[in-house]
């Protein structure tokens, strides 16, 4: 047996002619927070659905807690907890009843059932509201309840698919406190997808998937060395002319974004003074920063560049496909 809690080998998923997951392999160690990032439609959701036995892979193999996701579905399901990006609570039942339902279908022994439900509801600060119907909960309360539910059967692996999407920063922070506390206490492995780069920073390791293929897998620190340069953002009174100047004078291709130009240079501190003096276009505003995960992501997936290439018709198709896959 391997020492990994999740092992994925040459996983492929084809939907008709669309290859959603194209031969990916990786492993996750117990207790690790594993970030799984990628642009929309890159194969993230499909991969998660395969790992949690909702979708069967076309080929390849995936093991969770030593169990095969195709041939040992029940054991895999018992080993994992899930918090989906779309709500999956019964709104007509109370918070307490939702958890009881979960405890029953996940074989939580009746001797510890009520105690553990109380423990989880207290942790997410919903014990006082346990008797209200879930439809009366706010978005943040629902997500906290889902988190409590996902943890109720002490899963070995907790899948968090955009766990804080659409929540206010305060709730987001609190949910993260619970997650980190849990990892500390139970050694739970966390498999995380997120669009928030500051959340991805919390991961021990990050895998980036694009077009169904893994394009990088490493610690956040190591990933940042991929973008070894500093990032300069500048706004001028004529960005087109400034971009032209950058190209001719410094052989630098700038990207247009945030009402300005972004480009990379090896050493920002040395470059800026001369640049400001030499540029023929008037500079309105300028900033310099170290690379972030955002930059790594952009560099590896080139999401903005792709959006121009992809025709609208294809985008619509991919979007519908993505929605279909989620079911």
């Amino acid at each position, binding site marked *: 047996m391997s020492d990994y809690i999740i092992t994925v080998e040459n996983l492929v998923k084809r939907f008709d002619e669309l290859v959603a997951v194209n031969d990916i392999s990786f492993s996750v160690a117990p207790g690790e927070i594993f970030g799984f990032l990628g642009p929309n439609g890159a194969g993230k959701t499909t991969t998660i659905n395969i790992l949690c036995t909702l979708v069967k892979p076309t080929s390849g193999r995936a093991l969770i807690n030593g169990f095969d996701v195709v041939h040992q579905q029940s054991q895999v399901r018992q080993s994992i907890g899930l918090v989906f990006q779309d709500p999956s609570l*019964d709104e007509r039942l109370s918070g307490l009843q939702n958890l009881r339902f979960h405890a029953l279908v996940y*074989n939580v022994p009746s001797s510890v059932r009520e105690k553990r439900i109380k423990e989880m509801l207290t942790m997410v600060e919903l014990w006082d509201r346990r008797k209200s119907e879930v439809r009366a909960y706010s978005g943040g309360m629902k997500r906290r309840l889902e988190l409590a539910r996902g943890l109720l059967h002490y899963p070995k692996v907790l899948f968090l698919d955009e766990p804080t999407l659409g929540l206010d920063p305060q709730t987001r922070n609190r949910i993260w406190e619970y997650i980190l506390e849990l990892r500390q206490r139970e050694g739970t492995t966390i498999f995380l997808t997120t669009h928030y780069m500051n959340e991805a920073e919390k991961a021990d390791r990050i895998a980036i998937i694009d077009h169904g293929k893994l394009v990088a897998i490493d610690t956040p620190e190591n990933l940042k060395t991929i973008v070894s340069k500093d990032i300069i953002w500048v706004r001028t009174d004529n960005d087109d002319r400034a971009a032209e100047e950058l190209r001719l004078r410094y052989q630098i291709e700038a990207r247009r974004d945030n009402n300005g130009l972004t480009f990379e240079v090896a050493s920002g501190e040395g470059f800026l003074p001369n640049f400001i003096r030499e540029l023929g276009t008037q500079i309105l505003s300028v900033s310099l920063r170290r690379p972030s995960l955002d930059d790594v992501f952009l560099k590896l997936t080139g999401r903005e560049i792709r959006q121009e290439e992809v025709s609208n018709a294809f985008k619509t198709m991919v979007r519908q496909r993505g929605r279909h896959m989620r079911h």
Partner: protein
Amino acid sequence: MNHLRAVYTIWYRDLLRFWHDKMRMIGSIVFPLLFLFIFGSGLSSRMGFLGPGIDFTQFMFPGIIGMTVLMSSFMAGVSVVWDREFGFLKEVLVAPISRTSVAVGKTLGSATVALPQGILILLLAPLIGVSLSVTTMLSLLPLMFLLAVSMGSLGVLLATRIKSMQAFQVVMQMLMFPMMFLSGVFFPVEGLPAWMNVLVKINPATYGIAPIRQAVLGAAPDSPFNISVLGHTMSIWDNIIVMAVFGIVMTLLAMWSFGSQD
């Protein structure tokens, strides 16, 4: 043991939801009651007796009980579509329980919540001049449950294949209403035009309504309300067997269909 608990949990959730939603119970018996009292009062005096001492309201009464059970169990079975729409189905599908037990639990839950609604109608019997002995009332319960299980499983089966709310509306209009109108709830099913006769006889609901009527109005071999299929007059047990076979097939199909969806 595990399967049993899964069936129980799914069943119990349906009961809880039903209990939380008492308005649904009132809502779902209003429609049958309107039929019973408005059509009954409006038409009874003009139509005279349909059988020995049985006027239109009295004739319709057992049919209305059946219709109430049919509608509410079918709707409860199809409510899996709502679970999918609101996401809860995902919680069920990733749980370590077999999908066949989910289908069975859902079918039984749908049937169980339909019963009290049928019983409410049943309790109105004295109001419309139908006297029922306690034994008759008790004998109606298994007949109602049989119809409820059959229609509940049909609902679950359809719900596993219906992916959109639009398709759901179409199914309700194109399937449930014709099934209800062509089941002998509102009129005796013998002596109908040939095309209608065929539709009534292939409609499974007919064989769920018929035994309820036979139990309430009597099942004499010469009763004008007996139905005959291919020249054979269906006794109460014949009807029960047809309904039971239909129910078993639907439940097996629902179990299979639930297990094979993704």
